[in-house]
């Protein structure tokens, strides 16, 4: 009897491994992104961008059928870690793509990369992972966090703005943002204001800005904060008097709510929907058709992440078993990025162009950011020198 049972057990175990072997046939990609709470719209852009690319590639990446497992991190680091562990241990994913927010990235970095899984961030790109803590299993298709802010600082400096007013949420990314602006701006900083994260009413701050009457303000207020600030900035009559510079504050995720209030306001970015190259035109049209929304940077960077995986797997003939070969293939970044210029630096962060963008209303009534001028050409981030990878 016992022997029958052990036989059955062995048989069952064998069947299980068979199942596992079969599952290995399909490439598995875990997407971890924020899909609940007010910033859910950013996470949806990321997910949509990635899924659009997979769909256009016929449900395959590098010729292999792909299963995309999407997880919501709820913008909570502990939740993100649990879900990422499940992706790595239970689902045995080959790649993890995500997240949106930097604090989530800090949390999931170790569980993913220590397991030997490749982590590709289509948005968050903190300075520590660009420098001292750079990681061979970690690639970024977006930017190093302070680069988009540096665009405004450089532009303010070059265009002769004398008095600049700075505002950001009171947390690490906010401080990094203002540091990024100040790196290039040498004029007078009238004031530097930190507001609580997720503050909604800016009446007090706007009154102070009006009283200080600077030449320009720079704000970093992502998501709903930016929607509220921009509307109130316009309502207070400041939009016509003070130049508005920003990053992550007026983009395609916030414009549907800001609408006319945001027209003419400036941002800094590595891409805009009207960036003029054939692959981008095709992408924007397809995205709008599929999701009835104008894509933001989150969508395009996720789309690029999918193209990147596709190109790397083509080079390894679909194999993910030799990690060294896989990493080398990813690093070549042999794909046509929607942004045109793209290659990886030694720290696996991109070397790319950055633009000053401006909000415009399109003839079809939708809103988008459009490129005004190129501010940085093929620029690496300033932390790469601290990274020991070659």
């Amino acid at each position, binding site marked *: 009897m016992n022997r029958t049972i052990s036989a059955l057990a062995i048989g069952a175990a064998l069947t299980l491994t068979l199942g596992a072997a079969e599952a290995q046939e399909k490439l598995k990609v875990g997407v971890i992104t924020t899909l609940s*709470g*007010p910033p*859910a*719209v950013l996470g*949806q852009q990321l997910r949509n961008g990635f899924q659009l690319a997979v769909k256009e590639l016929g449900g395959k990446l590098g010729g292999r059928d792909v299963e995309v497992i999407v997880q919501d991190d709820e913008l909570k680091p502990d939740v993100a870690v649990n879900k990422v562990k499940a992706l790595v241990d239970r689902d045995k994913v080959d790649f993890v793509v995500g997240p949106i927010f930097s604090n989530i990235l800090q949390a999931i970095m170790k569980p993913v990369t220590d397991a030997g899984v490749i982590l590709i961030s289509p948005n968050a790109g903190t300075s520590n992972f660009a420098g001292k803590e750079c990681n061979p299993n970690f690639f970024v298709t977006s930017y190093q966090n302070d680069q988009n802010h540096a665009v405004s600082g450089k532009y303010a400096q070059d265009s002769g703005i004398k008095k600049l007013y700075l505002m950001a949420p*009171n947390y690490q990314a906010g401080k990094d943002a203002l540091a990024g602006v100040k790196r290039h701006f040498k004029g007078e900083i009238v004031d*530097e*204001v*930190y*507001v*609580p994260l*997720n503050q*909604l*009413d800016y*009446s*007090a*701050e706007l*009154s*102070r800005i*009006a*009283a200080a009457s600077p030449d320009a303000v720079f704000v970093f207020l992502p*998501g*709903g904060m930016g*929607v*509220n600030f921009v*509307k*109130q900035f316009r*309502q*207070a*009559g400041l939009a016509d008097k003070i130049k508005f510079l920003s990053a992550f504050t007026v983009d395609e*995720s*916030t414009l*549907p*709510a*800001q*609408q006319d209030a945001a027209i003419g306001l400036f941002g800094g970015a590595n891409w805009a929907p009207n960036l003029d190259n054939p692959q981008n035109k095709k992408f924007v049209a397809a995205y709008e058709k599929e999701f009835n*929304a104008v894509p933001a940077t989150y969508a395009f960077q996720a789309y690029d992440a999918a193209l990147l995986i596709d190109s790397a797997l083509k080079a390894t003939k679909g194999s993910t078993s030799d990690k060294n070969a896989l990493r080398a293939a990813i690093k070549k970044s042999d794909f046509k990025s929607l942004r045109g210029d793209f290659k990886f630096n030694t720290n696996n962060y991109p070397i790319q162009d950055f633009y000053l963008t401006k909000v415009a209303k399109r003839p079809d009534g939708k809103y988008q950011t459009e490129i005004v001028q190129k501010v940085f050409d093929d620029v690496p981030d300033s932390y790469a020198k601290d990274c020991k990878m070659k």
Partner: protein
Amino acid sequence: MSTALFIVQTLNGLQLGVLLFLIAAGLTLVFGVMDFINLAHGVQYMLGAYLAVMFYALTGNFLFALILALGAALLFGLLLEFVIFRHLYGRDHLDHVIATFGIILFLNQGVKFVWGAAPLTLPMPEMFSGSVALMPGLLYPVWRLVIIGSGLAVAILLYVLVTQTRIGMLVRAGATNANMVSALGVDIRRLFMIVFGFGAMLAGFAGVMIAPILSVEPGMGDTILILAFVVIVIGGIGSIRGAFLAALLIGLVDTLGRSFAVDILRLFMAPSPARTVGPAIASMLIYILMALVLYFRPSGLFPAKGR
């Protein structure tokens, strides 16, 4: 720190104050009269904003949108009361908290399902969209003045309702001793339902009034709910007058604190640490205020009689 800036910031504080009052009035009535903790009150504020956006899209007229949204908010409040809340009145406060928290989760997800996760916007009525010069060099958005005005009007209306009318008398009596009022032949259930619907409508009204300034998004009621609870705790649970004064107090303390904390700290600190410490202190001020009030007057500044 010029006088003009101080005046503007005081107005900003008043505006936040009356908004808090609109939300806290309903909350304190429900809490005071029915002894019912309604965490879902903030969701009703959010719903008011969403309904206004929807009705604006249908009618294209702010006034119609406002009226329809108020009606819908009232109906929805009554529906919630009828379907869920009336089964909870006799039960423990903890049951209230858990049930109404569930409603928060449910409705936050619900509005996302119906209207999408992206923030929406309600355009401001054209005639109130500009700024006025209150004195030379002192511009103030007209809409914020409208909010202050309508909030004060509601406060007066509530005062008259509660102190001068028969319904108000019953509400006050019901708050003191519900059993006695019931024994005298008043349908206390129906009275409670009216109070509840009215509270929901006030929260909805606050949502409609703030929607042109803030983005309308899921979860927008959650942060304001905490402030509203601070208001009713400071004001004294069940007291409309207390809620009114506490709301103005909190609006002013919060706004002036955010506005001038850094300046004040700079007087005796280096600019850089002042910039770090200032916002932290400013965001704590109202809670410090609440702690002080609770220490010296545990039942709030103006506790309702009979509690």
